């Protein structure tokens, strides 16, 4: 199997462990990831607030390049990229007027886009293309006894119905339960982490993150799993500040789901970038990382 890969700006630096662990997981499963040649920023939520047409056009440049390379499935691991690229596809399909404008702009740059690219999230590819059973059989370590709070965030399941329920998805839960872990009661799994509000209105975002952390900790989770660079940084980087502000401890490791999956598949600590996480691994996770691979 082969997929085209669109890392997105965050995965270059701030979410480097996500990039590393994603590549490691796909390597371990024998799937080739080809990086999209000369990709550009998808525009994220912020470009959309300034200029809709240009935002769609620069996002569509990536899709046009992907189409030109002859691939049909494009993997976008960052939730913002995933939702923006999907939205671009949908808007261009549904609005002839926007499509005409975007075509014109792409044409100036010598590109064309015929709407043939599917945007996929790695979680979707792993569970629905590779299959939970296959991953279970490839596992080299067991996650027995590990209690997880899988956090999906907003943008991989919304606004349109994608590969899972929009308010109560279970894809990640099913995957990790097959690998031996148990998932705690975590009703806030698709509640917003605040995203860029952490920069623009920190007080609003800190409260949202505090509620997420409290919910996971109160229900006995050993770690939170995320699927998005923005969520991961928001949940991980401000724990001390939240503890100071709201009292009670808010310390809990926050891993990319691919990091834990990589551990189960027997990848090394270095391959998964585990040392790059700001919150060190706690006892339960450190024991798992030391477990010899079968």
């Amino acid at each position, binding site marked *: 199997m082969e997929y085209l890969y669109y890392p997105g*700006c*965050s995965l*270059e*630096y*701030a*979410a*480097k*462990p996500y990039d590393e662990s994603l590549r490691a997981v796909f390597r371990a499963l024998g799937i080739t990831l080809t990086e999209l040649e*000369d*990709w*550009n*920023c998808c*525009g*994220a*939520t*912020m*470009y*959309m*607030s*300034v*200029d*809709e047409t*240009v935002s769609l*056009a*620069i996002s569509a*440049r990536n899709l046009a390049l992907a189409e030109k390379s002859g691939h049909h499935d494009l993997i976008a691991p960052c939730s913002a990229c995933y939702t923006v690229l999907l939205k671009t596809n*949908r*808007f261009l399909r549904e*609005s002839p*007027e*926007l499509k005409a*404008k975007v075509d*014109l*702009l792409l044409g*100036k*740059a*010598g*590109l064309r886009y015929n709407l043939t690219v599917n945007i996929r999230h790695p979680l979707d590819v792993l569970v629905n293309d590779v299959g939970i059973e296959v991953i279970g059989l490839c596992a080299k370590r067991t996650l027995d006894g590990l209690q997880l709070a899988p956090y999906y965030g*907003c*943008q991989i399941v*919304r*606004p349109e119905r994608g590969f899972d329920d*929009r*308010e109560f998805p279970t894809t990640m839960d099913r995957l990790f339960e097959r690998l031996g872990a148990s998932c705690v009661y975590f009703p806030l799994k*698709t509640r*917003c982490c*605040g*995203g*860029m*509000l952490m*920069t*623009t209105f920190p*007080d*609003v*975002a800190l409260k*949202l993150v505090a509620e997420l952390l409290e919910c996971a900790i109160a229900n006995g989770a050993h770690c939170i799993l995320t699927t998005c660079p923005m969520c991961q940084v928001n949940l991980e*980087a401000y724990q001390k500040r939240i503890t100071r502000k709201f009292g009670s401890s808010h310390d809990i490791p926050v891993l990319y789901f691919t990091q834990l999956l990589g551990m189960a598949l027997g990848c090394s600590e270095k391959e998964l970038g585990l*040392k*790059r996480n*700001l919150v060190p691994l706690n006892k339960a996770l450190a024991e798992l990382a030391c477990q010899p691979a079968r």
Partner: protein
Amino acid sequence: MNTERRIPGSLPEPERTLRRRFLADALLVPGGERVSRCLQCGCCTGSCPVSYAMDISPRTVIALFRAAQIEEILRSRTIWICASCYMCTTRCPQAIKITDLLYALKRTAMDSGLYPERFPVYLLSKNFVQIVNRYGRNHEILLLARYYLRHNPLALLQLLPLGWRMFRRGRTSFFPTKIKGLAAIRTMLHAAETLKVPPAKEAVEYGKEVVGYRAVA
């Protein structure tokens, strides 16, 4: 003193212009026209994780729009607080694209200059766009540095320890990556400028001969 002569039932001039500008943008969004179906049930406000921090709730945004108070919406904190989580859009029983409408309102507010000075979201978005236009990709350090220097330099100092921790773990870089196809992006941006047509003049001029009720969409 307001010397404008108004036709009974018509809207005052600033309201008319802003509405036209907003609708021209919002109706381009697939499903944008569904805003007229709103039942005022309040599902959006109830589902919104940040409505507690808004000055007018998402439901009230639509109510105010109907009451011809668009300027009040554009001057509110609400449109800037939305974190774009799409919970309201998901739950709306009338399938109104509330998040997308808020984006259109943001753009209308920016285009009309109706936002408080040095407003955080505006500053951040503008800087983001400048960086993407220059390099083709976003660069977090550059974005945050430019934003905080203009918005609140003290907060930048507060962020330094976090920046250092990220740097030690190889999660930041001081140099942005430039893409090869930058020329293509520039061409598209340039072409987009020519696409922008000035807002069309209203078809009916309001003169002496126009009498009676006439609401402007």
